[in-house]
């Protein structure tokens, strides 16, 4: 590197320091560039490693499951092994009923609880927040046993409503914590504006904070739904599964995860294929719910602008 050195520059400490820093920067550039590329490559490798299970789960279940798919697979009732042409229609309807009742029951507790957590910083809120975090860590099979004791033993038989109860209990803490985050992200200046106009806190929550957080609230519900749809353990003690078509909330009912579990462990290959087909359907369902929740939230946010 060539630098013109004048006697004046030698004596000027700023100029000398600038030249020194620039020469260090130029000399170390190659090393720093290499470091940056290595770091980027490491990140890429780890990203790939996390994507491999996701992609292989989807492709493998697709491979095995797609052979089961046909129109009758989605529209017919199951047939005994050896008799072709059966489907999982009763399990689709069963899952729909269980999860619809679960989400309907969980929304009021989840969102109002989230509102309380977002609005209050007191000790009670801290306790509830801790309890919700513990609850979301409880193994789902425990919730199944809880629902079994609470509803199956008392009613005397397995039922869809008991399954909804177990799944709903599982959903409440998820909705609560996610909607707390969504409600907290509503700018404080909005609720202050409402209060400064003479509004009571409940009115500000209902007319200002909840509508402003709506995209996030929808995401929190869909997140809980996508979690609940795939849960199997709570259904084992509650819905128990069924070969028949049922829409009754107080009778045993079929459900998609139960088909995967119960048919998948059979020795007959046609039942195993049905389990794979159902598994792939579940994977797509959960994927659609997750992607859909993002799209809904993004569209709602855009409409506001």
């Amino acid at each position: 590197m060539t630098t013109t050195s004048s006697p004046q520059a030698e004596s000027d400490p700023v100029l000398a320091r600038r030249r020194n820093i620039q020469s260090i920067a130029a000399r170390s550039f190659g090393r720093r560039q290499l470091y940056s590329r290595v770091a980027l490559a490491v990140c890429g490798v780890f990203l790939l490693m996390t994507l491999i299970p996701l992609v292989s789960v989807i492709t493998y279940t697709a491979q095995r499951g797609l052979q089961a798919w046909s129109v009758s697979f989605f529209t017919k009732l199951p047939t005994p092994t050896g008799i072709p042409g059966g489907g999982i229609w009763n399990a689709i309807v069963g899952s729909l009923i269980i999860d619809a009742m679960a989400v309907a029951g969980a929304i009021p507790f989840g969102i109002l609880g989230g509102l309380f957590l977002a609005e209050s910083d007191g000790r009670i809120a801290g306790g509830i927040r801790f309890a919700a975090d513990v609850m979301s860590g409880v193994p789902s099979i425990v919730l199944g046993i809880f629902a079994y004791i609470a509803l199956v033993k008392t009613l005397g038989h397995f039922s869809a409503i008991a399954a909804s109860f177990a799944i709903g209990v599982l959903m409440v803490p998820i909705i609560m914590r996610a909607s707390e985050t969504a409600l907290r992200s509503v700018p404080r200046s909005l609720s202050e504006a409402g209060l400064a106009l003479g509004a009571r806190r409940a009115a500000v929550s209902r007319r200002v904070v909840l509508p402003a957080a709506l995209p996030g609230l929808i995401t929190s519900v869909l997140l809980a739904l996508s979690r609940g749809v795939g849960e199997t353990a709570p259904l084992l003690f509650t819905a128990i599964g069924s070969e028949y078509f049922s829409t009754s909330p107080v009778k045993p009912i079929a459900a998609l995860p139960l088909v995967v579990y119960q048919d998948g462990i059979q020795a007959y290959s046609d039942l195993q294929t049905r389990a794979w087909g159902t598994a792939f359907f579940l994977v797509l369902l959960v994927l659609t719910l997750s992607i859909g929740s993002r799209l809904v939230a993004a569209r709602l946010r855009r409409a506001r602008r």
Partner: protein
Amino acid sequence: MTDPDSASVTALDALDVATEQALEPPPLHAPVMQVRDLAVSFANRTAVRNVTLDFPRGQITALIGPSGSGKTTVLRSLNRMHDLVRTAKVTGQVLLGETDVYGSGVKPALLRSRVGMVFQGPNPFPSMSIYDNVVAGLRFNGVRRKALLEEAAESALDAAALWDSVKDRLKAHAGTLSGGEQQRLCIARALAVEPEVLLMDEPTSSLDPISTKRIEELLGELRNRLSVIIVTHNMQQAVRIADYCAFLLMGEDRAGQLIEAAPTTTLFQRPTDQRTLDYVNGRFG
């Protein structure tokens, strides 16, 4: 109501008397708001103390001073916004007319419908249309009659110099307006409740010069309607718009305090305190 001219003259005298002798009885034509020995602390740290100040009726009073001098803290104590902060403690007295703002029978929500507020940045309710934003305060206060809502909305939008540009798109989302228009919408929203006092916390600090100018222009006209108390860090703005100015400064204990209050021309040209002179001449702050 008294004749506005005579009221302003006596209120001017009242302001001078009040700042010099805090315990003097209220003058004949009472100021719209009075602050007596106000102190505000957050979690035992005093943010502002010893503020005794009268706000003249039907005039614009500016609270000026450098950052940390407690301007916003004083402003927010006037409509009890500190109630929302658990650790906040307000002592002293704030009067709205004859009413003790912190008196036991006073409902903060009802007080805030009499003392409106405009915030630092535009904060229209994003889920509501322009019209719903303007009448939000009325609805919060239980007004349901459509004729009254529409009449108040037009009057408020007109006073905020926004009616002509939005009258054909009242159902549009508030977010479709520009930043300056949004802030004027927030002013209209505050005016629609017909408050007696309007508190403004640096209402133009996030706006461009042209939007700022429009808001300053409409402020002058608001005098006919209500009394304005405005926080500004911009001394030129205070000179342009305010009839009265109160200068606050952070003391050695890091708590803000009132240095002096006077008609704007007096405060800027012949202040009694050396610190005011230094500040208005740009020597610090």
